[in-house]
């Protein structure tokens, strides 16, 4: 089957329209033979960043492995909206066990494939930030330190969205969630808490750690492709805005993800064996306030009074990321 030319615009970016590039530069999604690993008809919300991210990640992994792949899923939105019995959106072999054990289950699948002499079948584990950063973190760290042959993907929407938007260890400061309500002098999530799972992953000195967002899907595909060319434990942390939990318009998912990176609030980088090897530079820096203003979870920073102090603290976080990762004017 020949590749059908597909019009694919990335509105508002500096990217060249795909039609102007050669076929070798086509995205996986632009390929008429893409696998549709997670097919349409599932029950994700309109504008769901996780559904978008998962489709790109798995289709890219399927292409990289020539269709020889098994997916393991933690409990969470992605699992719930894709497999309400007797329906399933998965067109890849897919296993869901529990909320907190997906990395260990994936490690078990990889071990079985190895012992069966089928190491050409690759394993991708998936979880939200709750499943990866919080409840599954022990299993994730174990999978990392054993260097199990798994690409583990965290779709980070910065909270427990499936259970009704509660705070996770990946929720940013000041964000309103159901368990960090807008009450009191320091409304929303507390400053000085939370963790960076990608940096902790790097501390395991595993072969590959990368961050990505659904704003740069070509970059996301490239990182999956890169990861699947390697063996051992690999970790991909993808920022996936959640219209429900973030209080954003469904049409703004890509936009808000882009503002997260262009403000420096979410650094996009790659690391190998514990060292950063590449960063995605900020091409047109925006103030953090532009990122915050789109999201109802930060509405209390703007009304009834503008909380300049909190916004400044948020800007300081972004500035620190920019310095730390050399996101502006650094060596690329």
């Amino acid at each position, binding site marked *: 089957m020949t590749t059908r030319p597909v019009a694919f615009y990335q509105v508002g970016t500096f990217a060249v329209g795909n039609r102007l590039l050669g076929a070798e530069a086509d995205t996986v999604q632009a390929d008429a033979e893409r696998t549709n690993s997670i097919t349409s008809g599932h029950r994700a919300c309109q504008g769901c960043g996780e559904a978008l991210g998962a489709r790109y990640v798995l289709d890219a992994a399927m292409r990289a492995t020539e269709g020889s792949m098994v997916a393991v899923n933690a409990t969470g939105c992605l699992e*719930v909206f894709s497999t309400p019995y007797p*329906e399933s959106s998965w067109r890849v072999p897919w296993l869901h*066990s529990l909320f907190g054990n997906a990395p260990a289950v994936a490690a*078990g699948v990889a071990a079985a494939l190895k012992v069966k002499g089928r190491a050409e*079948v690759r394993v991708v584990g998936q979880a939200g930030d709750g499943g990866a950063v919080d409840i599954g973190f022990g299993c994730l760290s174990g999978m990392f*330190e054993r260097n199990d042959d798994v690409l583990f993907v965290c779709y980070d929407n910065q909270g427990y969205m499936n259970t009704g938007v509660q705070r996770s260890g990946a929720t940013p400061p000041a964000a309103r969630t159901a368990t960090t309500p807008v009450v009191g002098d320091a409304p929303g999530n507390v400053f000085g808490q939370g963790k960076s799972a990608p940096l902790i992953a790097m501390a395991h000195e595993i072969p590959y750690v990368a961050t990505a967002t659904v704003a740069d899907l070509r970059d996301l595909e490239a990182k999956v492709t890169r990861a699947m060319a390697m063996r051992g434990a690999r970790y991909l942390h993808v920022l996936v805005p959640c219209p429900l939990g973030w209080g954003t318009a469904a049409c703004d998912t890509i936009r808000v993800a882009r503002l997260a990176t262009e403000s420096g609030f979410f650094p996009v980088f790659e690391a190998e064996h514990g060292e950063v090897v590449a960063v995605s530079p900020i091409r047109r820096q925006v103030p953090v306030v532009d990122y915050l203003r789109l999201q109802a979870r930060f509405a209390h920073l703007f009304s009834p009074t503008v909380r300049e102090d909190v916004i400044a603290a948020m800007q300081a976080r972004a500035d620190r990321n920019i310095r730390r990762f050399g996101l502006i004017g650094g060596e690329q």
Partner: protein
Amino acid sequence: MRRQLEGSRAVALTVARCRPEVVCAYPISPQTHIVEALAELVRSGELTPCEYLNVESEFAAMSVAIGASAAGARAYTATASQGLLFMAEALYNASGLGLPIVMTVANRAIGAPINIWNDHSDAMSQRDSGWIQLYAQSNQEAADLHILGFRLAEQLSTPVMVCMDGFVLTHAVEEVELAEPSQVDAYLPPYQPRQVLDPAHPVSIGAMVGPEAFLEVRYLAHRTQLRALEVIPALAAEFGEVFGRPGPSLVSPYRTEDADLVVVALGSVLGTVQDLVDELRADGVRIGALGITAFRPFPVAAVRAALSYGQRLVVLERAFSVGGGGIVTPDVNAAVSGMDCPLTTVVAGLGGRPVTRASLRRLLADLPTDPLVFLDLDEAVVARELARTGGVS
């Protein structure tokens, strides 16, 4: 070949001959010697092909086994006590997904107070987890139950827990007839999963099931367990043919036929009970013992068949439902329904306290009327504590 072996080593050598393809290990006493021995067998190449994973918790151990089993590998792990509780969530998941994992539980008490010694609190707490539970009386039976366990698990596509008393069996050296590899190979064919994660035939395993089908899933799991009551005797008969010694049975009656009194128990304490039966029989007391090997599924018909109308029953419980009573007792009561068997529950040997012939003999000589008795309870300690705290007795 008969050899003097530590129970853990006998189990490890037997498990290795069952050719597990993925073994996950996390240390907890008194199970540790089993996974240590398996590590050595894998490293030395005696057990190959096998992936041996040192995991970071029991929860991960069971989770790795779940992934491995779903991907078509024969998976094994071992645990005890707190470790079994830590993997509790994954136990229900393994049985719900119908994955034929085999696990040794070196039975141990649960804290607090922390206690490493033997009782059945750990496995009994997972009574309803959907796992088949088989209790070994001796190291020979522990070894044999693993061979039968793998076959049973894979035939029914359901997980099997082999329970052996911590320290009392795991650390005891006694003579064991080790199964020859050729015999095990003849008895236990390679694992053929019912469904498997395979890119050539993608399946979704672990979907979300709502009210419309959940009851049916649970009911079918129950049916599967009940089938084990027919399958175990058949597998035991075949075991006898292949290995030249009797295979494990659902229950094991001992001198029960004309008995006025029968002591019902699980596990290694049956050795003590049988010795006591012999002693009392010599004194003219008509007493017998009934060992229960399969606790889940509970062999109602076999228990009923082994007992007689009007027999006095003593159920020796190595675990205890605080605020309730015995855990095996309700099952025995249900089995003898309508048989007019007066029953006394005796809670004994918690946290490794020895269950001695002398104590049992004293108890049986003058069986209290109270339906719930605590063997060798130190009344002075209890009275002192109640007085100190002003508690009510």
